[in-house]
């Protein structure tokens, strides 16, 4: 979980940097984004990394489900009185639930854009690249449906935030990296990225939705 988790966090950062280009809604900005999307789906080295990424997502999800099932079996009779908030944070105990929300989001998100980019019928821009930018903008500006998708997006980003709040520092503990001098740095870094990454992601569809008029 820790190896794939940290790899997925590195993906979150790279993906975010790519997505931020969508904040430039001018025609030139959209064409730049489309060229970038073409590069990301055709450059061989990135293709190899992307297959590794799909495998990591699957492994992280399947391993997580197995762990949750094993851990449930480890306590067949539950406590009648149980006050876990006195000894641990909510996110740390609900990584499975948060992960399920995130997985559902990934499926929706890949269906909307990744599938469309690879196999969908989408137009081309003036430069001859597939016009993914227009697909994205239309998805989020599509009236009520668009607003629901943006809301689901924001909720999912909150789930990622809580997931990282526990997950980032937890990965280091799993590797055995626990040291009085570095723990505060790792913790603060984890809290920082778990707030900033989801906020930056959520800003993009909200911005596109608001830019409609």
């Amino acid at each position, binding site marked *: 979980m820790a190896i794939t988790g940290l790899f997925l966090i590195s993906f979150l950062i790279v993906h975010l940097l790519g997505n931020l280009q969508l904040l430039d809604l001018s025609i030139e900005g959209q064409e730049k984004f489309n060229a970038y999307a073409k590069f990301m789906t055709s450059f061989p080295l990135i293709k190899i990394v992307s297959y590794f990424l799909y495998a990591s997502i699957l492994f992280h999800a399947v391993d997580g489900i197995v762990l949750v099932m094993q*851990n449930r*079996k*480890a*306590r067949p009779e539950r*406590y009648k*009185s149980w006050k876990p908030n*006195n000894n641990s944070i909510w996110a740390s105990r609900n990584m499975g639930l948060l992960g399920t929300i995130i997985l559902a989001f990934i499926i929706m998100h890949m269906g909307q854009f990744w599938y469309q980019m690879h196999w969908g019928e989408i137009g081309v821009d003036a430069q001859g690249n597939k016009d993914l930018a227009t697909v994205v903008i239309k998805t989020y500006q599509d009236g009520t449906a668009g607003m629901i998708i943006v809301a689901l997006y924001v909720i999912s980003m909150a789930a990622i935030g809580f997931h990282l709040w526990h997950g980032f520092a*937890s990965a280091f*503990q799993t590797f055995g990296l626990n040291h009085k001098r570095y723990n505060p740095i790792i913790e603060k870094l984890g809290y920082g990225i778990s707030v900033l990454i989801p906020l930056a992601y959520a800003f993009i569809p909200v911005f596109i939705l608001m830019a409609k008029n």
Partner: protein
Amino acid sequence: MDLKLKIWRQANQNTKGELKDYAIKNVSADSSFLEMMDQLNEELIEKNEEPVVFDHDCREGICGMCSLHINGEPHGPQNATTTCQLHMRSFKDGDTIFIEPWRSRAFPVIKDLSVDRGAFDRIIESGGYVSVNTSGNTLDANALPVPKANADEAFNSATCIGCGACVAACPNASAMLFVSAKVSQLSLLPQGKVEAKERVLNMVNQMDLEGFGNCSNVGACTEECPKEISLENIARMNREYLGASLASSK
């Protein structure tokens, strides 16, 4: 003070248990939690009822025998305290107190509040020792230099009394804090280093065989531990396990 108690009653491992209500009057605020249980049991015996079975031994907070999941937390509401050292002044007159056994597949209920913690013994048997030849050639303890920092850290790990509160508190019923403390107290010292690789592999293997859950670094264990055993032990065990898995000669 007068209290309402909700106590888990279970005849044996194979029957289903349930919470039963008891009322107890005139409990001294200065009595320990276990003395309150003694008082209840005396009343039950006088009424010809079955007394409540619970584990206890030294009642000094050092043996690790007492347990009890009190009001949703192992060893009750006070931090760094065993149930025997918990006093009734931690509660208020008229309080309702839930008293349940440790809940884990690896700790089956023997009767009422008493659980079988033999799984911990079998983990120790699998590697929690140092093989020393004691046939008259034993070295003086001070013949082996040990850095003060390591000695202190090993001592901290060795303060684990093996009560099982870590398992009881963990949402996954994982035994990682206990096992890592037992691995650490030996591997930090020169005598324990010799068998360190085999030890960590064997003890982790036995822990998994016993049916404990997996560690997801929630940290509830260290918060509820009466001896405040640190999560650094788990990190140390993870390091050792990783190293031993990759580099063990076996």
